[in-house]
C-alpha cells in the first residue's frame, strides 16, 4: 500500500481541513462539530434542507456534493463508517429553514442506526421534521424479492441530484421525500472490482483478488460480490452489468434513462469511456433513449480499481431534476 498521507489516524480530519480550505466560497465547517459541513451560500427560506452523509473514502461522495442544486450539508464519517448522530444533528439544525430536512444515505446497518438516532433527536429535541430516503440501488447485493436489503452504491449520486433539484424547486418535505424515493425506485447499479483499496489504518487490501481475476457485484467497501472470475473485456463486463440491471427493472423501448459509468478510484477515464461506449450500444439497440450521461469518478472506494454502471429510468419530473444546474466543489453542471 502506498498512500500520500501523514498519520493514518488523521486522514479524515486532514482531508476535511484541506477541503474546506480549498473551497471557502462553497463550504464551511460548523463550529459545533468538525465533521459537520454545510454550504457557505445562503439557501432560500422555506426550502427543504437536503442532508447527505456516510463514511469517508468515497470522495467525491459525499462531501463533494454539497452546493447549489444538490445537498445543503453533509455529515462525514470515519473511513467506510457511518457518521455518528452528532454531526448529523448539527447539520440538521444548521440547514433547517423551517421546512424540514431530508436525510439521504445508503442502506447500511451503521447508517440506518446513526441517521435513525439523529432523526429521533431532531424530532424530539429540536422539533425539526426529518424525512428519509435510503439508497438501495445495488442489484448485486440481494435478490429482487429482498430489495429492501440492498445496499446503496453509485446510484446515490442520482438520488442526490434528483432530491437536490426537488428541494430547489420549492417542493415541500413530503414531495421532496417522494422524489427521493422515486429516484431510488427507478435507479439500479451494478459494479465490478479489479483491484482492492487499502484502509489507511491497516494497510491491508479490502479484498483478495488474483492477478487475472475480477469480482462481479463487489460492494463499494470491498464487500464480496456475487462472482469471482477471470478478467473479461470491457464489452463483456458492460454486457453483464447492463443485462443484470435490465433484468431487474423494466425499461421499455422509447423510455428515457440517465446513465452513470462510475470509476471506483483507480480506473482511468479511458477505460470508463470504453465501457460507456458499449453501454450506449446496448441501450441504443434496445431503443432506450439516453437522456444524459455521466462518466467519471462519482462515488469511489479510495484507490479501488473497477467500474459500476447505473441507470435511472426517467419520467418527466425526474428529467427536470436531472437538467437542474448544480454548483458543488466536486461536481458542476450548467
Amino acid at each position, binding site marked *: 500500500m502506498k498512500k500520500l498521507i501523514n498519520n493514518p489516524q488523521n486522514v479524515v480530519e486532514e482531508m476535511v481541513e484541506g477541503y474546506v480550505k480549498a473551497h471557502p466560497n462553497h463550504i464551511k465547517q460548523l463550529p459545533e462539530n468538525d465533521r459537520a459541513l454545510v454550504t457557505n451560500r445562503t439557501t432560500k427560506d422555506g426550502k427543504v434542507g437536503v442532508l447527505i452523509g456516510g463514511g469517508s473514502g468515497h470522495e467525491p461522495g459525499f462531501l463533494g456534493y454539497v452546493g447549489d442544486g444538490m445537498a445543503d450539508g453533509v455529515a462525514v464519517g470515519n473511513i467506510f*463508517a457511518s457518521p455518528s448522530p452528532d454531526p448529523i444533528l448539527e447539520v440538521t439544525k444548521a440547514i433547517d429553514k423551517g421546512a424540514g430536512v431530508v436525510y439521504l444515505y445508503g442502506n447500511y446497518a*451503521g447508517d440506518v442506526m446513526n441517521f435513525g438516532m439523529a432523526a429521533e433527536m431532531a424530532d424530539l429535541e429540536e422539533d425539526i421534521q426529518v424525512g428519509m430516503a435510503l439508497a438501495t440501488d445495488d442489484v448485486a447485493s440481494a435478490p429482487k424479492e429482498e430489495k429492501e436489503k440492498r445496499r446503496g452504491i453509485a446510484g446515490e449520486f442520482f438520488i442526490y441530484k434528483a432530491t437536490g433539484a426537488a428541494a430547489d424547486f420549492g417542493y415541500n418535505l413530503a414531495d421532496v421525500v417522494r422524489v427521493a424515493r422515486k429516484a431510488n425506485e427507478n435507479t439500479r447499479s451494478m459494479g465490478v472490482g479489479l483491484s482492492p483499496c487499502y484502509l489507511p489504518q491497516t494497510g491491508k487490501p479490502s479484498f483478495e483478488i488474483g492477478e487475472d481475476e475480477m469480482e462481479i457485484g463487489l460492494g463499494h467497501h470491498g464487500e464480496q460480490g456475487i462472482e469471482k472470475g477471470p478478467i473479461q473485456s470491457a464489452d463483456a463486463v458492460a454486457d453483464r452489468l447492463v443485462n443484470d440491471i435490465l433484468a431487474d427493472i423494466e425499461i421499455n423501448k422509447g423510455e428515457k434513462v440517465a446513465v452513470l459509468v462510475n470509476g471506483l478510484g483507480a480506473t482511468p477515464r479511458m477505460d470508463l469511456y470504453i465501457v460507456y461506449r458499449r453501454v450506449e450500444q446496448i441501450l441504443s439497440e434496445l431503443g432506450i433513449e439516453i437522456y444524459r450521461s455521466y462518466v467519471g469518478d462519482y462515488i469511489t472506494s479510495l484507490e479501488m480499481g473497477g467500474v459500476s454502471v447505473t441507470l435511472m429510468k426517467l419520467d418527466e419530473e425526474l428529467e427536470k431534476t436531472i437538467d437542474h444546474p448544480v454548483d458543488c466543489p466536486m461536481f458542476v453542471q450548467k
Partner: protein
Amino acid sequence: MEFTAKDFRDYFKVIVDMIEEQKDYLCELDRKLGDGDHGVTMSIGWQAIGKKLDNELADEEDSAKLNITVGKTFLSAVGSSVGPLYATGFMRGAKAIKNKPVLHDSDLKDYWVAFGNGIQERGQAEVGDKTMIDTLIPFVDGLEKSFSESQNFLDAFNKAVVAGEKGMKSTKDIISKRGRSSRLGERSVGAQDPGATSAYLIISTFLEFVEQRIEKVS
C-alpha cells in the same frame, strides 16, 4: 461482590489495551465478512474512551454517569454499526444502575442484562443472524438463569461467558442475515463474525478483570 465507578474505570482501561492487541485480528475477521475495519473502529472508539477516562472521567464517582459518557464517547468517535450498538449497551447498562454508588451482585447482573438487551433492541437482530447478538443473547440468558439459581454474580457470569463463547463460535457456521455480511449468503459460512468476537472479548475481559481483582484482594 462490590463494584464501584473506580472499578469500571479500571476495567474500561483494560479494554482499551485489549482492543489495541486484538485490533488486527478483528480487522482480519471483518475482511472476510465485511469491510475490514472492525478492529480499527473499536480502536478509534476505545482510544477516545481512554482519553476521557484519564481526563473528564478521572474522578467520576458515579458509575451510571461514567457509563453514559463512555457510551456517548464511543458513539461520537466511531459512528459505524457498532457505535450505536455498544453505545446503547453502555447507556442502558447505566440506566440499570442509576444512583448506586456501589454495585452488588444483583446490580451487576442487571447491568449486563440491560447491556445485552439494549444492543438487541437497537439493532433488531435475532440469534442466528450472525451478529454480536449471537454472543450477547446466550450470554444474557445464561446470566439471568444462573443468577436466579445461585444468586452469585461471579459464578453466574462465569457460566454466561461460556454461553457467550459458544454463541460466538456458532457464528462460524451460519449464513449471515444482518449487516454487511448478509449480502454474502452462502459465502459467509466459515468465518466468525467480528462483532460477535468483540462482544465476547468485552465480556470475557470483564470476567478476567473481576477474577484478578478477587485474587489480589484475597
